[in-house]
């Protein structure tokens, strides 16, 4: 029923899931990303939070940072939501739907980080939160320009060679994902990874990596 015409990058469609106008699909390329995200979500779900140890210099004193059950639960919930959103973004066959999944990844990332009660980390979480919020403009603007100029949002049609997508829309999509997934912004990430709760923080990295690989595939195929 549905066929991808441009199979240079991702190969033939393995399966598709129709939801009304939004028809999601899996190709060998996206299937790998999907499994990658799924594995890390499961790791985040079953693992216990790491407990950091601070050692005071010049003495034998050291103290462990405590992670409360409440905070652990909250972070685990956010990590699971982040993993699901990432998987959704990988599956999605519709540009606007993809941007929404990306926005969801952005807000769950804020949640994972913001649950830690430390002024230094909260400062960074705020900085990143502003970035994620600002990033929704390029995302939605990119999707909107695609609809207006091509008349469709479905990737099945956008990937055909007949449809040309304006360069600016593609660029906007890419920089939108940059902000939401925080892919290249390792400055802020370094600060964030200092926070306790390792397996959950991991999801921030996984989601940004997977979403970035996906958006590059979309932009090149269009």
């Amino acid at each position: 029923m549905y066929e991808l015409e441009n199979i240079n990058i991702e190969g033939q469609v393995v399966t598709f899931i129709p939801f009304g106008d939004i028809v999601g699909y899996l190709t060998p390329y996206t299937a790998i990303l999907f499994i990658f995200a799924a594995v890390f979500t499961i790791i985040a779900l079953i693992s216990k939070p790491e407990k950091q140890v601070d050692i005071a210099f010049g003495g034998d004193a050291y103290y462990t940072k405590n992670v409360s059950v409440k905070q652990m639960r909250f972070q685990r919930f956010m990590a699971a939501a982040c993993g699901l959103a990432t998987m959704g973004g990988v599956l999605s066959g519709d540009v606007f739907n993809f941007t929404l999944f990306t926005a969801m990844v952005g807000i769950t990332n804020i949640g994972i980080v913001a649950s830690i009660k430390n002024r230094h980390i909260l400062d960074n979480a705020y900085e990143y939160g502003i970035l994620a919020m600002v990033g929704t403009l390029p995302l939605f603007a990119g999707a909107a320009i695609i609809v207006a100029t091509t008349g469709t949002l479905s990737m099945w049609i956008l990937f055909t060679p007949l449809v040309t997508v304006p360069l600016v829309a593609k660029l906007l999509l890419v920089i939108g994902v940059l902000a939401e997934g925080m892919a290249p912004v390792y400055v802020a990430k370094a600060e964030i990874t200092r926070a306790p709760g390792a397996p959950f923080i991991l999801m921030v990295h996984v989601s940004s990596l997977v979403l970035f690989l996906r958006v590059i595939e979309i932009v090149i195929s269009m």
Partner: protein
Amino acid sequence: MILSFTDDYSFGLLIGFVCILIAFFAMMKETDDLHRLLLTDVIEIIALVIIALIGTDLAEALILPGLVVGIAEILALAEIYIEKEGLVKTPENFLKIEIMDTAPGILSAIMLIYGVILSGFTGGAVAGLGLLFYFLCRGSQKKTQILETISGYAWVCWVVAFIVFMTIPQYWFFAVMLAGTGIFAKVAAKMTIVGTMRGNRDV
């Protein structure tokens, strides 16, 4: 340079682009954290403008998610801002006038009923305002937890409606009603929670 526009859309897009330039320039220059939070709202609205330029019914359907994402993120960020700045001071004296002792019951009942008649998104907002007024006057401690539960169930309603639409479309009428109820309860509950979230015993 004389720009020649192929259609109205390009002209609108140019204006949108100029707005984006101004907004991001402001974002670049601003250093105060609170002002930057306010500027993000400006940026969200320009995103909606760009979506609205499409000018079809589809655009209207896309604006709602866009708007909600903006509201949701600003809510979470504002809470982070409060947390990081340690702003937990509770208001000392709260507005006390006679009408707040006598009116809440009847006024919120009227608004609730009117909201049910309107139904859907608008109805939810009206009913939410009614509930908000009630809690504002009567005080609420544990009631917000009930509201949270309601909004959770509303979300489930919506998801069930979606599943019905996708799997058994011949029952579309049931799904429409379910989604309508879901959005009504969700908007009403969320509005009330936002209004009452102030960390005070009275409000």
